[in-house]
C-alpha cells in the first residue's frame, strides 16, 4: 500500500465512526453511527487529568501529554464496552488534528494512525472546534443552514457561522465554517479560572463560580462588559474581551481587603458571571439578528454554565431565535464529538487524511477536515 495514494471515504447509513480526542486534558474516545435520520451516539468513554492540573491553576501541557499516553488504550477499551461494539464494526477513525496542545494532540493522532492502519480503515483528521458544534447534532439532529454557533471554553470564545459540518471535501462547501467574532484576549473559561484563583476557589473555576453565584446577587457589583461601548460597535461588533473584567474583579477584591472589609464571594461570583453571560448572549443575539440566522447553538465547556444557559434561553426567545445547547456531558471535550465531525465528513464524501498528517496546534476554525 503506497502512503501517497489518496483514499476516498464515503460512508452510508449503518456505518460506525470512532472518534479520538486528546487536544487538552481529556482523553476521549467515542463511537457514532450514521443513520437515515442523522448521526447518533453509540457509546463513549473519557479519562481526565484535570485533578493533576488543579494545584497548578491551569493545564500543564507535559502532565496532560503523559496522562494521554497512559489513558489512550484503556479509554479505547472502555468505549468499545460502552458502545457494545468490537473493532471489526469500525468503518473509519476520526481524530482531533488541532487546535490544541501540540504534545497532547500528537498522542491521539499517532494512536489513531496506528489503529487505522492496523484495522485497514480510513483516517479522518478533524477540527476540535467543529467537534464542539457537531456534538449538538448527536442530541438535536442535523443543523439548519446556516446556524450561528457560540463556542465557549477554557481556550476559545468564538462566534461561528456554520453552513456545513462536512467541510470543504468532495462537493463540500468551502465556506463551511466562517469566523464571525472572537475574543481579543482571554477566553471566557480562562476568565472563570483566573477569577476563581483570585477568590481562592481552586481550579477549574467554572463549576464552583456557577454554584456560588446561585446564592449571590448578580447586581451587587457592576462589572464592565468588554467591547460593548459605542466605539466598539463597528470593528469589534462581534468580538469579546474578558481581560478587563478579570482585572476589575481583582481591583474590587483587593480594595475590599485593603480596607479590611469582608469579601462577599457569592455576590462577586454572581456579578462576574452575569457580566460574562450578558456579553456572550448579547453579542450572539446581535450577530444572529444582523446576519439573518434563525438558529443558535451554544457549545464548548462553558456551555455547561447555568446562567449562560438561562440567559441565552431568555434572550433567544425574545429575539425569536431557535436555541440549541447540548447536554452537559456533550459540552466538555469528548471523543463522540470528534466522531460526529468524522461522520459528517464521511457522509458527504471526502478524501481520507494522509498518514503523513501532522498535528496542528493552531488549526484555523475554517478547516473542518485536514488532508
Amino acid at each position, binding site marked *: 500500500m503506497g502512503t501517497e495514494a489518496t483514499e476516498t471515504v464515503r460512508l452510508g447509513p449503518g456505518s460506525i465512526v470512532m472518534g479520538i480526542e486528546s487536544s487538552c486534558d481529556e482523553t476521549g474516545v467515542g463511537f457514532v453511527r450514521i443513520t437515515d435520520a442523522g448521526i447518533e451516539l453509540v457509546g463513549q468513554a473519557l479519562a481526565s487529568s484535570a485533578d493533576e492540573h488543579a494545584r497548578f491553576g491551569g493545564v500543564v501541557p507535559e502532565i496532560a501529554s*503523559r496522562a494521554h*499516553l497512559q489513558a489512550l488504550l484503556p479509554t479505547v477499551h472502555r468505549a468499545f464496552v460502552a458502545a457494545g461494539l468490537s473493532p471489526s464494526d469500525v468503518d473509519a477513525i476520526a481524530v482531533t488534528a488541532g487546535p490544541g496542545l501540540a*504534545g497532547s494532540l*500528537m498522542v491521539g493522532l499517532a494512536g489513531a494512525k496506528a489503529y487505522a492502519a492496523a484495522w*485497514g480503515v480510513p483516517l479522518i483528521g478533524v477540527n476540535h472546534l467543529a467537534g464542539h458544534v457537531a456534538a449538538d447534532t448527536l442530541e438535536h439532529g442535523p443543523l439548519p443552514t446556516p446556524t450561528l454557533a457560540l463556542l465557549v471554553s477554557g481556550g476559545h470564545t468564538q462566534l461561528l457561522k456554520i453552513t456545513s459540518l462536512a467541510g470543504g471535501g468532495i462537493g463540500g462547501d468551502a465556506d463551511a465554517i466562517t469566523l464571525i467574532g472572537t475574543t481579543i484576549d482571554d477566553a471566557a473559561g480562562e476568565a472563570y479560572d483566573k477569577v476563581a484563583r483570585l477568590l481562592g476557589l481552586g481550579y477549574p473555576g467554572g463549576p464552583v463560580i456557577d454554584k456560588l453565584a446561585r446564592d449571590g446577587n448578580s447586581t451587587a457589583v457592576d462589572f464592565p462588559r468588554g467591547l460593548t461601548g459605542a466605539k466598539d460597535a463597528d470593528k469589534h461588533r462581534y468580538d469579546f474581551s474578558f481581560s478587563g473584567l478579570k482585572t476589575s474583579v481583582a481591583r474590587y477584591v483587593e480594595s475590599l481587603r485593603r480596607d479590611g472589609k469582608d469579601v462577599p464571594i457569592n455576590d462577586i461570583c454572581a456579578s462576574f458571571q452575569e457580566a460574562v453571560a450578558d456579553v456572550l448572549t448579547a453579542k450572539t443575539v446581535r450577530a444572529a439578528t444582523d446576519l439573518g440566522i434563525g438558529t443558535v447553538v451554544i457549545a464548548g465547556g462553558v456551555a455547561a454554565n447555568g446562567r449562560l444557559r438561562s440567559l441565552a434561553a431568555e434572550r433567544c426567545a425574545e429575539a425569536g431565535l431557535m436555541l440549541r445547547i447540548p447536554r452537559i456531558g456533550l459540552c466538555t471535550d469528548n471523543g463522540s464529538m470528534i466522531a460526529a465531525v468524522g461522520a459528517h465528513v464521511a457522509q458527504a464524501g471526502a478524501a481520507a487524511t494522509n498518514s503523513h498528517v*501532522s498535528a496542528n496546534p493552531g488549526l484555523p476554525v475554517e478547516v473542518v477536515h485536514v488532508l
Partner: protein
Amino acid sequence: MLVLAIDTSTPVITVGVVNLKRPHEIAAELERAGHITDQVNQTGEFAFLPQSDVYAVLAEKVRTDAFGHVEHLMPMVTDTLAETGHVVGDLEAVVVGIGPGPFTGLRVGMVTAAALGDALNIPVHGAPSHDAVARQSCWAGDFLVVTDARRKEVYVTAYAESAVAVHGPVALAPAAVLGWCAENGFTPEWIAGAGAHLAAEATGLDVRKVTAPLSESLVACATGALLTGAIPGPLTPLYLRRPDATEPHAPKPALPKS
C-alpha cells in the same frame, strides 16, 4: 516471528522489520545444513550462535527529524513492511524503545507501538533505548551510552563490556558525567550513542560508532520475553524528569500602589 521494531527516543526515527527465529526454526536450519544439534537440544539456548543466525533484519528505515516523529513514523512503518512484502496484519510482535529521550517524540513511538499491538492483538515489549544502542557495539571495555537530553544535559547509562546496564540512566550536564561515573566506581573507556559528541569534550573519552542495525538490537533486548511468550509489562517511558510545572504565586496586585 515477524517483529516490528520502533525507536523515537532521539531525532533519528528508526523502524525495522526483523525476523526473530524461534528455537525450532534454528534447529531445523542447522539440521538442514548438516550441523549436529545435540548442543541445541541439551541447552535450549543459542548463546554459541552468531547473532545473525537468530535475527534477520528484513528492512530498516531511519530518518532524522527532531520534530517530525508524528508525521513520519506511521508512513515509515507501512513503507518498511511493504519493502519486505508484508502488511501490518502479518506482524507478530512489536518492540519499542522506551527512552530516555525528548518526551514528545518518545511518546509518538510508544503510543504507535501500543496502539498497533492493541489493534492487532499482539504483544508489545518496551526496551530501554540505551540498552539497544549498547547491544549494537562490538568493542571491548566498559562504556557509556549518551543521548541528547536538551537543556544542556545528556542522558547517560553505564554499561559493562557485555552490554549489561550497570548504572543509570540519568540526566546530567556533560561536565558532571565523569563525576557520576566516579561516584559509582565506574571507569568508562569509551562512549557511544546519538549524543556522544555532546559529552566527548567534557569526558575526554573516545566516541565510537556502533554499527549493527538498531532494530536488531531492540529485538535482541526483548528476545527472552518474545520467545517465552511473557506477558508484557506496562509501557512506561523513561522520563527521568518531572513535568515542568510551578504552582501559582499570589496574583499580581491589580490596584496601583498608593
